[in-house]
């Protein structure tokens, strides 16, 4: 009988597809489900992704190093240090901190932590960009492995 084997193959393919779906969003899903919430300062830009529409690019002003760091390349870690109601960077580390909240990022001259894009309907993306001219505050969630997700942004 060939039909059951074809059906089994299809079910297996759908399971593989569902697994790939989880893999594609795993760090952000982990932060969303298991992370704790922190408030950090941001500044906006406003481009469009062809597959997912309008978004605001967020620049985490207090995460970025002041100048290029020679010899640092690949995975880096940003410890979060409380500063009043907000959290700021405790400096870049090339080793995973043993304790405390931290964000896992990549550095190749530019710091990317996976929380630089906030997807919104186009009108709201433009409005947010205007509202954030003087900067804003991002609410992010970070899990115990440093995976982060941005939840929302408000004007400061």
């Amino acid at each position, binding site marked *: 009988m*060939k*039909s059951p084997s*074809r*059906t089994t*193959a*299809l079910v*297996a*393919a*759908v399971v*593989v*597809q569902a697994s*790939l*779906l989880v*893999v*594609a*969003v795993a760090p*952000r*899903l982990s932060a*969303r489900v298991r992370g704790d919430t922190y408030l950090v300062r941001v500044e906006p830009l406003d*481009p469009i*992704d*062809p*597959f*997912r*529409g*309008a*978004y605001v*690019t967020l620049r985490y002003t207090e995460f970025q190093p002041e100048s290029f760091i020679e010899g640092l390349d690949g995975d880096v870690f940003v410890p979060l240090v409380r500063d009043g109601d907000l959290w700021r960077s405790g400096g870049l580390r090339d080793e995973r901190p043993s304790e405390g909240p931290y964000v896992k990022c990549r550095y190749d001259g530019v710091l*990317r932590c*996976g*929380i*630089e*894009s*906030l*997807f*919104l*309907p*186009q009108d*709201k993306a433009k409005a947010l960009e205007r509202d954030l001219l003087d900067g804003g505050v991002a609410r992010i969630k970070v899990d115990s492995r440093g995976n982060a*997700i*941005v939840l929302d942004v408000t004007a400061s």
Partner: protein
Amino acid sequence: MTKAHEVSSGQVEWLRREVAIWQAEGLVDEAGAASILGRYTASRRTTVVRLISVLGAAFVGVGLISLVASNIDELSPTVRFIGIVVVWLGAVIAAEALRRRLPDHDAEGPDANDPDANDPDADRSIAVGSARIIAVAAYGATIFQAAQSLQVPAYNSGLLGCWAAGALAYAYASRGIGPLLVGIATLVGWFTWALGERSGDDGDFVVGLMVGAVVATAVGAAHERGALRTFAAPWSLAGALLALIALFGAALPDVGRDGLDLPAVGIAGLVFAVLAAGAAAARADAQGRREIAAVVGMLGAGLLLAAWAPVDTTDELSGDELMHALVGTAVYLATAIWFAVVGAVRDRPQLTNLATAAVVLFVTVQSFGVFAPLLSGAALFLFLGVILIAVGAVADRGRRRIIEEVAE
């Protein structure tokens, strides 16, 4: 009397030629030949219906992804995600249910594109193909919806890679050619994008593309034997496209200027490509082995061109740079001619047309490079226009001659 089957005019033409040969060899008499030919009638209906259905399914797929991109905030992200998952799984189930209604649904091979099916079967087969295209596009939309809801950073090549892998898994499980085409297109897109992100310089990029070309050609050749023979052509076409892009780049004067310093992942890619080529050659037919050997040779040529750093003495073109450009051009033209011949031998006009278009594009770009410093404004465009008309005519004549000579 048996009802005549409607098939494409190209298939009728091919059958006429074959039957004439059979008659000449004494395999069938005149009455038999007339009887065979009488079983088939040329119709554009099936082709047109198939084209319209595929276009319709493709539009629905693009529409689903556009719907995700429009980020409708009247619906919560969870509702949007569940909605697109329902469309994806619904299309998978619908395609399977339609396939099971086909009379030969247990047959091996990609049944959704069987051109020999009679009218009602052909219509249902087209419906299966359309449902599969919608399923594979809806799967991509599901990934993008999840990524949008979870704010995965924009322009993340990994999402396209996951879509490609999922599309290929579905293509092989369903044996559908539509999902395979989507899978290969997204795979080539992801591979080129990811390679561009990670390549240290243009030499790495050229070698990476050639590695992709060898693997795709090997997969295509391995498919020439077995139940999934119709999967061979798309892989072969992808291999040719990657090889032509890679060697196009290798022939440009500035490529290879810094020499080649492959990272560990590049060397691993080369080893993998050679192993894949060897494994496929063991399974392929004689023509398939020739195609694998040729593309491995192209990989070698690409490596040499990328590693060959011409001595740059002054701002003007040095003798070494001129030699690099000439060798690169010769390799590129030989590659394009090879793929045109393979297209004719395998009866794959799309491959021959790709090679012809590649030659015309190459001559256009190289002509601009050579003549732009010498001519300006209107004179440049008039001169290049004449050159291109001549090249187009010569290339088309060459393409026809190759097809005729191989047919003989």
